């Protein structure tokens, strides 16, 4: 009798522990609800950091540390991404060999639209990011694609981000099971531990924003893509969302995927969607 009771209590506790450990990640077992996810995600950060203005989250580590914020503000007076921005503007308006321009590939001529990327392409059944759209535009017009991680791609996305500065992130998830699946997939990637250090994106950016990993202050996941592309002091240059995903995987000793791999596109979709309403601050400068 006692043994059975002990067993029951034991398994009940185990179940409770398992539930407690997993419940933050289990949102709705049956129905994907991005609206609820975004709300929960934002509220988590707003409550964890009640003194940080909502819009300030897009400034990454600078929203978490005053000393760093001052250094950043001084540099923003004449920011290091100026040159990339100017180069991007010029590139954007330079026609392809066939006479067409980037403006022909994008709604509103590509101006002030960055906040709508990534979007779910119902024809293709996949997430399309801004970087991907730019290279597709090039290839459709007989031009060679650019590397996804820096240089021209960073300059072009810097310019496009700049034309959207201040506009709220506005990602749409159509009522399409494939779009919902992409969102879930991105969310799953974000929360899954991987690599030698067994970190998930959430380990640093949800559990420890504002704290240090070795000597760097961690940015909150909320709004973390709003400043892309970024000039990183560490890189002494510009880098795109692709660059950051790849290098972050490497740095946590996980196997990086190819830029614009499906999971990366889905993660970008997820992270951008849950930041809906927060302003585009790109191009940005980071440590």
């Amino acid at each position, binding site marked *: 009798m006692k043994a059975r009771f002990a067993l029951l209590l034991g398994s009940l506790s185990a179940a409770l522990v398992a539930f407690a450990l997993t419940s933050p990640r289990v949102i709705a077992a049956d129905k994907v609800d991005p609206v609820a996810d975004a709300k929960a995600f934002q509220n988590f950060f707003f409550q964890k950091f009640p003194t940080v203005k909502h819009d300030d989250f897009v400034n990454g580590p600078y929203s978490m540390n005053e000393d760093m914020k001052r250094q950043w503000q001084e540099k923003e*007076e*004449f920011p*290091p991404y100026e*040159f990339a921005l100017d180069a991007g503007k010029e590139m954007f308006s330079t026609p392809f060999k066939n006479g067409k321009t980037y403006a022909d590939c994008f709604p509103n001529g590509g101006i002030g639209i960055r906040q709508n990327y990534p979007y779910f392409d119902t024809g293709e059944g996949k997430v399309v990011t801004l970087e991907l759209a730019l290279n597709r535009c090039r290839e459709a017009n007989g031009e060679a694609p650019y590397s996804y991680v820096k240089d021209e791609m960073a300059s072009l996305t810097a310019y496009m981000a700049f034309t959207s500065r201040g506009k709220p992130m506005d990602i749409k998830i159509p009522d399409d099971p494939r779009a919902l699946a992409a969102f879930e997939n991105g969310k799953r990637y974000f929360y899954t531990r991987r690599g030698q250090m067994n970190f998930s994106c959430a380990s640093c950016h949800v559990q420890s924003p504002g704290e240090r990993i070795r000597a760097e202050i961690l940015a909150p996941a909320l709004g973390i893509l709003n400043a892309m592309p970024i000039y990183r002091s560490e890189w002494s240059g510009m880098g795109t969302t692709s660059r950051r995903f790849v290098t972050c995987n490497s740095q946590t000793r996980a196997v990086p995927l190819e830029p614009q791999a499906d999971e990366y596109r889905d993660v970008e979709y997820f992270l951008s969607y849950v930041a809906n309403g927060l302003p585009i601050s790109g191009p940005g400068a980071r440590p």
Partner: protein
Amino acid sequence: MASSIRVRATANGDITEVQALIQHPMDTGLVKDSKGELIPAHYIQVLKFECNGKDVFVANWGTAVSKDPYVKFSFKGAKKGDDLKISWTDNKGGSDTTTAKIA
């Protein structure tokens, strides 16, 4: 844009504030490239600002000035519409110059 020099000069009454950002690698000569070879030192040595015929600011720089160097200073005696001439020379004999109007 051909010039490596970006400048913002704003007059506020008698005082003009100048900020300049210059595109330049400012290599120290101590860093190795991916092949393991030292990248030779390449840095701006002298940066001059002239207005109305005289030097208003002269910078003497070494390799410890950051890449894409920035400087900010203020001076008196100029007004909106005046020309500010900026020029630099580096240790390899490179140079650039530009003129900006004080806003």
